[in-house]
């Protein structure tokens, strides 16, 4: 059984078909990339998984669960975490606080034990902090731990978003354009991190990305989309040489 399965999913906004009868599956342990022209419906796929949209038709299953049965806030509980194309961090909080929010799905305490800061609440805080510190170490964020998000450079924010997603301890990590706006140096870092996330942490990664260098460097399989539908699916090399993909997406040089 695949970790994530899209089965004939269709989504329409008014007259516009954003996702058209799309089927694909992501296997456990792989890095799966989605590429395609702007407006092809890549981010919409993510938003469908996050349950921000209800599909018009079709099935989305994750780890044996019917995702369409849960609320948007219930998706994280199954172990799905994500980042956003335009960075949606909690601006008026520190990096540490952002990451701790990531731990929210592991909350065991209730209102009363938190108000009185009981032993169990304290223990939970220690655990959370420990886990978060691991991630801070992993992504080299030590220098920014107590900084407010609002003052951080773009590149760091992108990393913090990945860190926050990792803090949830996910099975599947959705990365929406992790390298956009990053410098070559930062993109290289991101590439190794994605690799480590998969290899060391055993997390499956599904990402949308335009940087073909990054895509071919880390992903096992690539799905090319156009106009909400599947254009090609295969190894990075296969997809990159697919004529339709070259024509609609890559252009002459690549």
């Amino acid at each position: 059984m695949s970790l994530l399965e899209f089965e004939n999913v269709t989504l329409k906004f008014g007259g516009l078909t954003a996702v058209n009868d799309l089927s694909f599956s992501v296997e456990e342990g792989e890095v799966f990339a989605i590429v395609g022209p702007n407006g092809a419906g890549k981010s919409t796929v993510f938003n469908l998984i996050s349950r921000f949209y209800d599909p018009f038709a079709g099935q989305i299953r994750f780890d044996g669960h019917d995702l369409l049965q849960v609320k948007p806030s219930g998706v994280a509980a199954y172990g799905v975490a994500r980042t956003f194309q335009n960075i949606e961090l909690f601006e008026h909080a520190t990096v540490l606080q952002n990451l701790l929010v990531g731990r929210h799905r592991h909350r065991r305490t209730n209102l009363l034990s938190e108000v009185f800061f009981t032993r169990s609440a304290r223990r939970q805080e220690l655990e959370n902090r420990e886990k978060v510190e691991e991630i801070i170490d992993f992504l080299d964020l030590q220098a920014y731990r107590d900084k407010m998000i609002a003052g951080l450079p773009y590149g760091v924010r992108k990393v913090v978003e990945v860190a926050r997603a990792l803090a949830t301890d996910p099975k599947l990590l959705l990365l929406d354009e992790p390298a956009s706006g990053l410098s070559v140096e930062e993109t290289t870092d991101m590439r190794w991190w994605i690799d480590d996330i998969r290899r060391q942490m055993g997390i499956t990664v599904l990402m949308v990305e335009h940087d073909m260098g990054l895509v071919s460097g880390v992903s096992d399989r690539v799905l090319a989309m156009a106009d909400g539908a599947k254009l090609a699916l295969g190894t990075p090399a296969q997809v990159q040489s697919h004529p339709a993909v070259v024509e609609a997406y890559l252009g002459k040089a690549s």
Partner: protein
Amino acid sequence: MPFLVAFPLAGILTGIAGVTVAIPALRLHGIYLAIFTLALSILMDDLIVLAEPITGGVAGKYMGGVEIFGHLVDRWGTPEQFFWLVLAVTVLVTLGYINLLRTPLGRSFIAVRDSEVSAQAMGIDIARTKTVSFALSCAVTGWAGALMGLYAGAFNNESFSVVISIQLLMMIVIGGLGSIHGAFLGAIIIGFLPQFLSIAKENVGALFGGSTVAIPGLEFGIFGMILIGFILFEPMGIYGRWLKIRTWFELFPFYRKDMFKRQKSYLKTERLR
């Protein structure tokens, strides 16, 4: 019912009331939420009158002293006891508040405030979080109301009007938005200001040999001007000013004048949700 039972119960009941308000208000933001609550407070006035058997209608209700472990706590009879009671409640609530802010629920408040989409993606149930925040704030306000009743001794539908809500808001602004320190500083200022003003007024009047002639609305006028002054010159309130003074001392002699100078900033629409 003994006070020690009734008092927590007051908080729980107002908390439940908060939940019932929160549920229809869940989808509202910003000005829409503000006007929703404003309309509610206007309605509440009439509901209190209509619910005369419970609330005493326009005549209101009276409250004498209460007994706690055999101690009589009465605003008029034993003001010291009353003071300790209020102080104890305030300290306890503040501690609970601080605890809350460093645990998951408190952080989920911040998350929902800053970005609803990503809060959801982190597994935070927006509706539940908002409802809990309403319930908590209503519960605490309920206790404040209970103590206020004990303080005033009498209350009716007009006791807790919109004007008070606005005053509370102003307290927070003068103290410093979004910090516990600020809330206390603001409350102290607003609590003393009217008395201070009336004392000042008398002294000024005496200085010019005139009688203490009242100028209608003077207090609110001065109040408004102080507020405008704060927003223009110290938008972070007294607490913000304190932080600056502290930084000055911490960094002395390396403090630069324009350390807190704001670079130009620009707003984007809030009509996108």
